[in-house]
């Protein structure tokens, strides 16, 4: 009874029998729910790493058509506003600045059409790093330069950059700066949950939850009555998470469950929370296509604000202008799928991307382009 075994030939599927049985279970549960409600089930995976795992494993092919996976606002590159990208590019053009960044940010275009990659070709010193700690080393080796680390990311990344700033402070490294553009996941969930939203359940980000703890999402199930599962990143983790969401719908018991309990606790990582609290503070943040959301981001706290590159170089705010015709904003809100965009796959491809959902390797459009989309 292992008929579809060879369909899971990818090394991502460590146990094909388990996977095939899990899909049968999901099919059965979806059919039961659909018989009751007659409505399509829309689950949103909030994290870009989940988006990639779902696409790369090919699991969509095995879902019944009444089950859809939407990609949420959990790809840091995708949600960074156009105005903030322009501010980063303005810093990159300043003499004697070395920009240090995660590779993801290199190809995001500013409103002028330039990106960090093209600015580097024009002679700017821009270096892709694995860890912000490497930027500190560069700072101590280049005392005559100013080193700016591009601080984008969610609660997974914010504490490690906060910790790096704390080291710079202790070691009195005065030529190190960051662009504090951190975003928070819970306010983003609030933003995609207006009245009449069509989200039936959330697969919540595993590694953000390692830091903030699963209890941070209680408001989603309590106030909005939407089921939540914090899931790991192996395909079986996600399938298991989807199964748990379906059971919550069937039993009409929305709550926050954790499938990824080998890494995630209810309270999260206290040391990471403490360093964030010490170095950063909650502030309004600008989200691509969503706009400004109150208390949805982290900037440097008063005691550490001298590390803020925007303040140091006196970079002003820019109004955000989205690339014309790009529907990335709708996609990250779960209101459209990549294939709904008229640029998808023709004018907009990973090698020549218009919008950030195609630029970031974790963006929904890039994942669909690379691995194929839904049904």
């Amino acid at each position, binding site marked *: *009874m292992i008929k579809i075994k060879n369909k899971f030939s990818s090394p991502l599927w460590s146990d094909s029998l388990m*996977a095939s049985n899990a899909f049968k279970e999901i099919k059965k549960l979806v059919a039961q729910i659909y018989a009751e409600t007659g409505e399509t089930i829309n689950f949103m995976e909030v994290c870009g790493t989940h988006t990639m795992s779902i696409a790369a494993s090919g699991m969509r092919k095995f879902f019944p058509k009444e089950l859809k996976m939407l990609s949420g606002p959990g790809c840091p590159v995708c949600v960074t506003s156009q105005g903030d990208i322009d501010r980063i590019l303005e810093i990159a053009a300043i003499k004697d600045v070395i920009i240090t960044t995660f590779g993801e940010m290199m190809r995001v275009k500013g409103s002028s059409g330039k990106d960090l990659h093209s600015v580097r070709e024009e002679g700017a010193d821009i270096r892709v790093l694995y860890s912000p700690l490497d930027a500190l080393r560069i700072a101590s080796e280049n005392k005559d330069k100013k080193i700016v680390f591009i601080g984008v990311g969610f609660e997974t*990344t914010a504490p490690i950059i906060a*910790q790096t700033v704390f080291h710079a402070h202790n070691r009195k490294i005065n030529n190190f700066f960051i662009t504090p553009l951190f975003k928070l996941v819970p306010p983003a969930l609030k933003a995609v949950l207006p009245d009449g939203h069509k989200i039936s359940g959330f697969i919540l980000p595993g590694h953000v939850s390692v830091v903030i703890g699963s209890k941070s999402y209680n408001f989603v199930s309590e106030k909005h009555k939407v089921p939540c599962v914090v899931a790991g990143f192996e395909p079986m983790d996600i399938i298991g998470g989807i199964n748990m969401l379906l059971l919550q719908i069937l039993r009409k018991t929305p709550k926050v469950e954790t499938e990824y309990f080998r890494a995630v606790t209810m309270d999260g990582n206290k040391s990471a929370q403490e360093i964030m609290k010490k170095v950063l503070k909650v502030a309004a943040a600008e989200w691509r296509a969503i706009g400004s959301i109150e208390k949805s981001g982290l900037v440097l706290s008063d005691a550490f604000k001298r590390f803020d590159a925007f303040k140091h170089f006196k970079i002003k705010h820019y109004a955000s202008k989205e690339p014309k015709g790009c529907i990335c904003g709708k996609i990250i809100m779960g209101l459209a799928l990549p294939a709904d965009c008229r640029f998808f796959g023709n004018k907009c491809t990973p090698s020549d991307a218009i919008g950030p959902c195609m630029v970031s390797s974790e963006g929904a459009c890039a994942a669909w382009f690379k691995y194929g989309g839904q049904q």
Partner: protein
Amino acid sequence: MCLAVPGKIISFKQNIAQVDFNGTKREISIDLVPEAKKNDFVLVHAGFAISVLSAKEAEETLSIFSELYAMKEDKK
């Protein structure tokens, strides 16, 4: 971008640990997991360990899955 990779701590020098990622070794900061010990498995994100993984709970996850799915081979 929130990618994190598990590895095993093989030694310490203050707050820097040597972590073995299936053969590849790298220095990793353990600032955020001060409780980590030698031979622990840690989740590493951009040069920092962010969580100590529980081997017991990883096995438990697998056994839950086996119970839920793999046992159904003979049914139907």
